């Protein structure tokens, strides 16, 4: 659904955030991983809070995880989402241990279940921005 009429809020393409979404545009979900202690992290940070190292690389995620929690937004609290309600912003915990805010796409809000298995898909919402979203597996 890539089009110029997309009115929803978009991330600012700056610094590490730009790098994160740049990989998504290539169809890759990558998170930072500390080169020293191997800890994964999200959201992007300059430094490893576990060991203090500033050496890291973008490592490919398995793209698989489980539903950690969600809410069903029945009343949109931002005008850009007026036509979407009810929709379900969710938090997914990847197998690597990091969590990210996302949306579950193939599942009605009423069917959301904590710990349900999910896997990443990529939604190119504009020519510049691709958002990682998730679909429930094993349905």
């Amino acid at each position, binding site marked *: 659904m890539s089009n110029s009429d997309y009115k*929803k*809020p*978009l*991330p*600012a393409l700056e610094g590490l*955030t730009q790098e994160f979404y740049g990989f998504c545009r290539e169809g890759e979900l990558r998170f930072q991983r500390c080169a020293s202690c191997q800890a994964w*992290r*999200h*959201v992007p940070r300059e430094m490893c*809070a576990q060991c203090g190292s500033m050496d890291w690389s973008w490592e490919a995620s398995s793209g698989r995880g489980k539903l*950690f*929690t*969600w*809410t*069903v*937004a*029945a*009343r*949109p*609290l*931002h005008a*850009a*989402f007026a036509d*979407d309600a009810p*929709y379900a*912003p*969710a*938090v997914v915990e990847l197998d690597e241990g*990091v*969590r*990210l*805010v*996302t*949306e579950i796409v193939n599942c009605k*809000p009423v069917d959301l279940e*904590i710990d349900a298995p999910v896997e990443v898909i990529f939604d190119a*919402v504009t020519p510049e*921005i691709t*958002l990682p979203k998730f679909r429930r597996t094993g349905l």
Partner: protein
Amino acid sequence: MANEACIVGIGETKYCRGEGSGMSQLALQLSACSAALADAGLKARQIDGIMPFPNLGSAEGFAANLGCENLRFAATINMGGAAPVASLQAAGAAVKAGAADYVLVPAGWNGYSGRRAAQTLSEQVSSIPGGAIARDFYFPYGLTSPPQWYALMARRHMHLYGTTAEQLGAIALAMRKHAQLNPNAVMNGKDMSLDDYMASPMITDPYRLFDCCLETDGAAAMIVTTAERARDLAGSPVRILGVAAGQPYPADEITNRKDIFMTGLTIAAPQAFKKAGLKPSDMDFAQIYDCFTFEVLQQLEETGFCERGEGGAFVEDGRIELGGALPVNTHGGLLSEAHVLGMNHIVEAVRQLRGECGARQVKDAEVGVVTGWGDFGDGSIAILGTA
């Protein structure tokens, strides 16, 4: 004791919706400041410290309007709704250190007639410490507003501990019941039953409309000084027995906390009780920042009134209502009095300790607790006592 900090003045405006306050946000807050000055028996020129609420005015602006010609301490604690109680700590430290003699702490807004309270953070998210993270990683998915952020925690708590909608409803009902005893509460005269609560429209699961704080116009203010100076004033000072603030980790991102229920209060509460030499069971009342019902339950757990996961059972059977073991939000709180950014919780705590609460007075109240909650779970807590 001589070098202890005290609250010596409180003030508030009428709280309303409908046609609104008819005043600017600054004028509204200045009215509350004037009321606090009169309550303390102080002149504006004696105020030499001012701590405005984040994004709601400058100390310079307050001083210029009020006539505070001797301003020498100006600061804002950037913790959203946790700011007023956290300011109590900073104001107390300032007067004890001699940085100021009398510190004025105002808060208030036209949260109904102006930009609606519900819109404030979604339109101004860059103003909070985690704002850029929310913009880049939450907003694209429609996670744009505090009830949605906190609902993520509430949903997980319900899953892990079996917390129910009826238990969240018990919190909303207690606040509403207390508002019937408070003429300045916006929900005074509007009873609510559990059926009304359950029938209220879903906003963001599990939050129904009546799980959410009000949007109102109104302002409140307090004045802090040392116990020594308080002795020269006419009124009864309320003692700050222990006060602390804290941040969750990480404070700027709400989903990657090792312990998803950990808030600033988890760190702050034990410190405040230790400073006061008291424990949760000593409290005669609790004014808990009630932006949403689950946050009351969560703060009761993190303050140590009950164990993690027991909050649901704790709020049942009228335990948090007047006459129960721990009356919570005797004024009606943000849910049923007004959303005055938590400053109204401090005002109510002071009134309870002065014995000025009339029909909603907690009998023989000598010590109570007030909390603040802001941004992605910043926390603050003060234990207050009679002089």
